[in-house]
């Protein structure tokens, strides 16, 4: 979720189409020939948080980023992240991450960013979350993975997999993206998915990836809409080691721009569950 990576989307579109088309044919064959193996690979639940205990998120599963980072977490984001119940709390079986308009520690907005860093880190698997997103210009909810070696090798060498990002100004569109060396920020490899007749803020949807050796499949609900493999990235494939999970709701930033006078606050991102399968 670092930097604006949407700029090259259009130019990549046709190219992606062809790639997806080709790969889809490949998958088609795989499914036909080895369908059982594919399914078994990612149905063994190895980690989950169903957010069923009201109150603060389980400290055994989640830690927090606090504050504003450097340059608004590298993206010019406007919120101050806290671990207060006002910004992150479990109620009625849902994790609620709430962005508020309030003066707090020099920022105009508060919100929360939860990580499994140091608590749950894993290579490969099916990572999915069932979520209902906020809405309105300036909302930037995300469900993503960051390479566990981030602090040793830095970004983008550590690798980043954005399972789901959304601009609150585009309530039918999400995108899935990977960042790595030579393909990050504006050059990241990304694809949008448009629900067209549904929205992200009125219904829960499952956002996930199937991640294995040398491939990452992106899906929404039951729809697989993209696959990225080493052939798709113009640089080193950095997705064969452990990553941790991040869920956050940013306000403003270079992905979708700041809130405007029509943005309604507070805004809440509802997470029903996060599940990881082997």
């Amino acid at each position, binding site marked *: 979720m670092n930097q604006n990576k949407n700029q090259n989307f259009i130019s990549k579109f046709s190219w992606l189409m062809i790639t997806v088309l080709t790969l889809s044919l490949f998958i088609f064959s795989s499914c036909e020939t080895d369908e059982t193996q594919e399914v078994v690979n990612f149905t063994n639940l190895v980690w989950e948080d169903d957010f069923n205990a009201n109150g603060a998120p389980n400290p055994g599963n989640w830690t927090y980023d606090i504050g504003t980072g450097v340059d608004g977490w590298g993206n010019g984001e406007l919120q101050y992240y806290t671990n207060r119940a006002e910004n992150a709390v479990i109620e009625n079986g849902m994790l609620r991450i709430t962005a508020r308009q309030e003066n707090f520690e020099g920022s105009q907005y508060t919100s929360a960013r939860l990580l499994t860093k140091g608590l749950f880190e894993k290579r490969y698997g099916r990572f999915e979350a069932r979520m209902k997103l906020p809405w309105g210009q300036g909302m930037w909810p995300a469900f993503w993975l960051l390479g566990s070696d981030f602090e040793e090798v830095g970004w983008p060498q550590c690798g980043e997999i954005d399972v789901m990002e959304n601009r609150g*100004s585009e309530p039918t569109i999400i995108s899935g993206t990977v960042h790595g060396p030579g393909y990050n920020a504006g050059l990241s490899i990304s694809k949008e998915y448009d629900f067209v*007749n549904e929205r992200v803020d009125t219904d829960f949807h499952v956002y996930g990836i199937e991640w294995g050796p040398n491939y990452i499949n992106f899906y929404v609900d039951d729809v697989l809409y993209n696959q990225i493999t080493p052939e798709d990235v113009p640089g080193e494939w950095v997705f064969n080691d452990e990553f941790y999970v991040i869920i956050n709701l940013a306000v403003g930033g270079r992905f979708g721009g700041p809130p405007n006078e029509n943005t309604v606050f507070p805004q809440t991102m509802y997470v029903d569950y996060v599940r990881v399968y082997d």
Partner: protein
Amino acid sequence: MMREKTYKYRKFPAFLAMVLLIFTSCERDLDEDADLATFPSIAEVYTDNPVNLTDEFFISFDPAEGANTAGFGTDDNVAYEGTSSIRIDVPDPNDPGGSFIGGIFKDRGAGRNLTGFDALTFWVKGSTSASVEFGFGTDFEGDKYAVDLANVTLSTYWRQVIIPIPDPAKLVQEKGMFKFAAGTISTGGLAYTFWIDEIRFEKLGTVAQPRPKILLGQDQFQQTFNGSQLNIGGLTETFNLGNGQDVTVNVAPGYFDFSSSNTAVATVNEFGAVTVVGAGTASVTATLAGIDAEGSLTVDSQGEFQPAPIPDEDPVNVISIFSDAYTNVPVDYYNGFFNGDGQTTQGGAPPININGDEVINYTDLNFVGIGTFLNVPSIDATSMTHLHVDINVQEPVDPGDFITLVLINSVGNDETSGSVTINSADLVSGEWGSYDIPLGEFTELGSRDQLGLLFFVSDASISNIYVDNIYYYKEVIDPSPNVDDSAATEVALPIGFQSTTLTYDIIGFEGAEDTSVDANPDPSGINPTSRVVRSLKASGGQFFAGSLLNLDSPIDFSASQKFRMKVWSPKAGIPVRVRLEDQNNTAGIELDSNTTTSNVWEEIEWDFSGVYNPSVDYVRIVVFFEFIPGLPGDGSTYYYDDIQIVD
């Protein structure tokens, strides 16, 4: 969005087919969009032809009110899709066929079930970027479920318009399929053309985040009385569309469910009409499809309302601005909301109705104007003698409180103004005070032939008043008997100029030097006596040319201050100023009173009760005919007679 997607699929048919196959076999379906691309035929209103409508599907707004019916048609050369579109030629304001265009597409059958849809959609483009209103639900049969989207800005390329349905469950039998209304205000009077195509109801699935409002989302408070009728307006609902844009539509009350927190105080009907039925407080709120609407009306009823006294002036002598007793002249407004000038006053827009009695309640009063100069004729009150107003102050009256009435003539065009102040001693709290103010007391006003504004000014000394019965009237004076002073021993009121032994010390000045006692030119009507004062206001004389009469004894104002003269003027509706002075002209009072007729004797009154000083000896009477600042004399000859104080 739908259409772009359709094109995309057409462009990549192979891709579509293969993805479908792939994901079916992987136990994942293609997203369900493909299944949603079909609509019942009843969804369509106009494609290349009206769909499921008769040939007479268009019903124009009333041509008698200026709607132009000639500009409606179809265009086989322009279409967003298919071969034809609806073409609207919007007339210019001076078009003899009508200055605006609009109407509805009506289902002439039993109506349609629209419960399966969430929006009306269509495509529109214009020859220029004008602002047009669209909607549906207007059926000319009560418009119960009307929804309007105002101020849609046209572009010169095709653009889709989406009008959400606030609560589709209500539309089980709807006949109002489409509505448009267009004029040239947004183009500065330039005619233009726009085209509409592919009008249909759709289930978009992306119309979301409904935010209904009543009273435009404001929490309003109204102090009132039993019997008061109030209307909940400002009904809107804002949605967020699939493109992320907010859209706000005006919504008919039929979509809302109104409720009162205390029906012993206020009831509300399905149209949002509130009736106050008992003393106390009640809050009226609403929901739309189960969602609480922002905004509320809290009424605080003080119980039974005491209506203002019923006026008893003969209607033929009245020009009424606001009274149930008379036919009122049209006004621009009862509250001009001059907020840019610091006005805080609320109320009067519109007046409120208490038991069928229209009354104005001004709150947060500092000043407020009633306008008659923008789009309605200004008021010619030259033949009127008084301004009447009833005021009921809804708070304690403290010393220093006041309400000043200001009249402005010829607004914005060499305007003149005059004012009269009602002091705290004359204001009453919790009751009606009736005020009959001689127009002559608005001394700086000059002419009153084009009255355009009446202000109530309190400078916040009084903040809450009820106002009723605002009207000008002509006081009909019963003529006094003729004064026979032939045996008088000094020049003192009453004076009839009949004495042949006394010297009437009359001095004309500044163009009225030719003033003296003379023979009555018209010994008839109310004044058959032989001798009167003749005064020539010479052509080119000063507007303040006049004559003075020195008295031998001061005027006795002890019993009454109503000063009367009989006057003969060749002109009706001109001000006659009377000034009363002490011996050395160190104290003087003056009032205007207008003639109401011409070339006949009439009696006019100047009521000095509001301005006289009992400790001053007024020994000089100065009379100015046609006292209009800047207007020189024109050679008219005036006469006056029978000067007296009447009780």
